[in-house]
């Protein structure tokens, strides 16, 4: 970063990217490739990279870089690109506000409270974890109840352990990864308890993190009480019925000093909310176009701020697109308007982006509500294709090519994922 007067940042950038995690880094690079000359990326941490920096396990980049990297390794690949593109990186800084005229208020110890005008803005703030409070577990409120992500930061970044005997509520990917990580650190992991009848995380994580380490996974089971006045002393768990109500007479106690909570992520989009951007009630992130533009002109969004991804590779891909869109917008090149609105139909919880064009190829990301195998993906009545299996814990990515939609002339397009037989009958 150029040596600037201590209280001044350049007043204007073509593109300002809020967040320097995987989404922000890819968006910043994308912005340059989309034609932006001056790009600023703001991150609240001391160094960019976001949550990747605490994900020291491997398994990143298989799709994007065609090799297996650790989280920090993946982040480094992108950081190098960020630096090659002469992107200004402002760390230890926080975006307080973005207004509709794209004036970005930035708070930093180095530059004070200042504002920057942006030709386009990319929101890439990521997500936060759902907490114990979000699901109201009765009992006491001792120390030792923490999100899996916080435990991950403690272990991998700070060099501490969250406890000696750990129970995990929820089978989100971070919880699964942490189960293995803690065992490797010599911590006893007594089990993973999942309310739903299926695991929430990726199948590969269930296998590699739990099965390979003999960590029991209790499906259709939840924590119904937390004990301990100062530190967690034990938790009571109980199986649940079909309506997810605990069967208390079958409850049992699990001795532990720590309860990790891994019950999902929520897009962190306070900025989008205050901007008045239209939100999708299902993803709780912004509604976005095929270039990841929100309902506000020149405000783009990408990554977990928009919808929760399982793989960082897809975050990078989607975010580069957002950056390119923002770069093009800032250079005065508006792209073609979308003419297709994707509507989640049977067994589809959400679709991102929300609109596409029939002109170009698009990657569409789906979440399903129920597991099916084998099954068929249908786009209205114009296109269908077989899928080997779908599960709610894994995002489905679909390339939609212009030729699929040759016979479609725009408007609402329903997206269904149905059992193969059903599709065949019609």
């Amino acid at each position, binding site marked *: 970063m150029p040596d600037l007067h201590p*209280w001044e940042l350049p007043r204007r950038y073509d593109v300002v990217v809020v967040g320097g995690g995987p989404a922000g880094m890819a968006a910043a690079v994308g912005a340059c490739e989309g034609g932006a000359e001056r790009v600023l990326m703001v991150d*609240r941490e001391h160094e960019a990279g976001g949550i990747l920096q605490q994900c020291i396990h491997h398994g990143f980049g298989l799709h994007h870089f065609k090799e297996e990297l650790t989280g920090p390794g993946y982040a480094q690949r992108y950081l190098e690109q960020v630096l090659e593109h002469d992107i200004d990186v402002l760390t*230890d800084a*926080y975006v*307080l506000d973005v207004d509709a005229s794209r004036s970005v*208020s930035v*708070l*930093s*110890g*180095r*530059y*004070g*409270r*200042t504002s920057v005008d942006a030709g386009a803005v990319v929101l890439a703030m990521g997500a*936060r*974890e759902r*907490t*114990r*409070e*979000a699901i*109201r577990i*009765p*009992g*006491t*409120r*001792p*120390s*030792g109840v*923490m*999100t899996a*992500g*916080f435990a991950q*930061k*403690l272990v991998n*970044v*700070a*060099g*501490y*352990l*969250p*406890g*000696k005997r750990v129970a995990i509520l929820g089978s989100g990917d971070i919880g699964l990864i942490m189960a293995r990580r803690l065992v490797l*650190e*010599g911590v006893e992991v007594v089990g993973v308890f999942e309310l739903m009848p299926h695991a929430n995380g990726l199948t590969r994580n269930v296998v590699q993190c739990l099965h390979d380490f003999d960590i029991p996974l209790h499906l259709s089971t939840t924590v*119904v*009480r937390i004990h301990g*006045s*100062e*530190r967690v002393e034990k938790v009571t768990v109980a199986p649940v019925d079909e309506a997810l109500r605990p069967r208390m007479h079958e409850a049992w106690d699990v001795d532990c000093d720590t309860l990790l909570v891994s019950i999902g992520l929520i897009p962190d989009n306070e900025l989008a909310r205050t901007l008045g951007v239209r939100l999708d009630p299902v993803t709780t992130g912004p509604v976005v176009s095929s270039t990841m533009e929100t309902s506000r002109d020149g405000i783009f969004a990408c990554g977990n701020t928009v919808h929760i991804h399982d793989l960082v590779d897809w975050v990078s891909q989607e975010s580069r697109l957002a950056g390119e869109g923002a770069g093009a917008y800032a250079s005065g090149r508006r792209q073609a308007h979308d003419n297709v609105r994707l509507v989640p139909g049977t067994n589809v919880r959400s679709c991102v982006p929300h609109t596409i064009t029939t002109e170009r190829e698009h990657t569409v990301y789906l979440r399903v509500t129920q597991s099916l195998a084998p099954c068929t993906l249908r786009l209205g009545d114009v296109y269908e294709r077989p899928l080997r299996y779908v599960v709610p814990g894994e995002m489905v990515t679909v390339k939609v090519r212009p030729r699929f939609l040759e016979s479609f002339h725009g408007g609402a397009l329903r997206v269904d994922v149905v059992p193969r037989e059903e599709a065949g009958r019609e």
Partner: protein
Amino acid sequence: MDGTIPIVRTRMAGRAEEVLGMRFDVAIVGAGVVGCAIARELTRYRLTVALCEREVEVGLGTSKANSGIIHGGHRAPDGTLKAATEWRGNQLWSDMARDLPFGFARIGDLTVAFDDDDVAYLQRLLEQGLRRGVTGLEMWDAERLRREEPNLSEDIVAALHAPSSGVVNPYEACFALAESAVRNGLELRTETTVTGIERGADGFAITTDRGTLHARFVVNAAGVFGDELARMVGAEEAGLRFRKGEEYLLDKRLVGFVTRVTFPCPSPTSKGILVTPTYDGTLMVGPTATWSEADDLTTTAAGAEEVFDGARRLAPGISERDCIAEFAGVRAVAADEDFAIGHTRVPGFLNVIGIQSPGLTAAPAIALDVIDLLAEAGLALEVRDDFVPTIDAPLRFAELDPDEQARAVRGDPRFGRIACRCELVTEGEVLDAIARGARTMDGVKFRTRAGMGRCQGGFCAWRCLRLLASSQDVDVSAITKRGGRSWIALPRRDDHAATEVEHA
């Protein structure tokens, strides 16, 4: 002052050895709101005063875990100490709020009637209040109520409005009272549990787990431990039992949904569930009232059901789905349900126990009464001319306008680093809280709001841990949530041997 916001440094606790054998005029046991208020009143005089607290911070027992209501003064039964202190206490909160920085607002309260019996009860409350000089009481008909509080139930037929009622952030009040008292010379001993008291020829020897101190007078403000303390010295006990109350906090979405503290009429079996807008505007619903152990701070599924059913009866739009946090507190209840304040058969040992609702309201009046009792018992009161009634308000970055924020960061770059993003709390504020006496994660949280928002500490916990550790020059593993064994992180396996000792 050119935007420079100095971080104040207040000495909150010296080393234990320093007070070993020290002689005080008065020792107070228990730093809840009552103990803190008494301590601060006493520092107005030329006296040496010690305040012993078993917890690591002040005000984190019953004083923290309650509804935070400053009652109107018309509710306590006639002829009780509660009635004698409630209205005076209510009025005194304005003086305290003028001098000390804590959240306090007179938002008013409503007692609502669903039928004729309830209306008759409101009438009795009104008359009782008028007799005590409570100002502003007014009966509202259904139409007026609808206009003022459109989200309350349509089944309500009348309401008694008490505009003098208010809400306070009770923990902030405790922190401010203690800080003010320390500034005026109070010796505050936290993490100090009294294990024995003996009366000698010239006062009391108070044995603690950190040494012995001596005092001519002892004030028992030990909350749920009140009887235990009285027993140590052979004073009268109050027959304390413990009543637990569960409270549930609702999401910011419901700010403004109900704007006044709303009470139902009590039934023979229950005092009822209230809807309380906290000082910050978020709604709190509760409390339950069940007999419990002194240390039972559990919330229960049954409690949640009772609270939300009760709250919905008052305001049907309230839902469990809006709950963001929950807690429980225990009130110490004397056998006769009244406060137990006064001399005991042990000369010089005063009881100030059984302080349940409306104890928070009454606290400043209780403090003045205790000063009178101490004078009766022979304590000479000489007013100081150097008492400083005020303390500097902590900077609240989120409440500043953009120019003030810019000035604050220029003055100290630590106000330019966000610690908690949900509540927009800066590192500068966290460090200020530590300088003012925060020692634990809860101490930081209740002083700054860091960790109180939607993510409940997911992001800021590490930053706060690090700041707490580095400013006290200890390892992160020594930092607790709220003292005792509430550790948060352990050193890695290689260092386990050392840890076993520490956390054993």
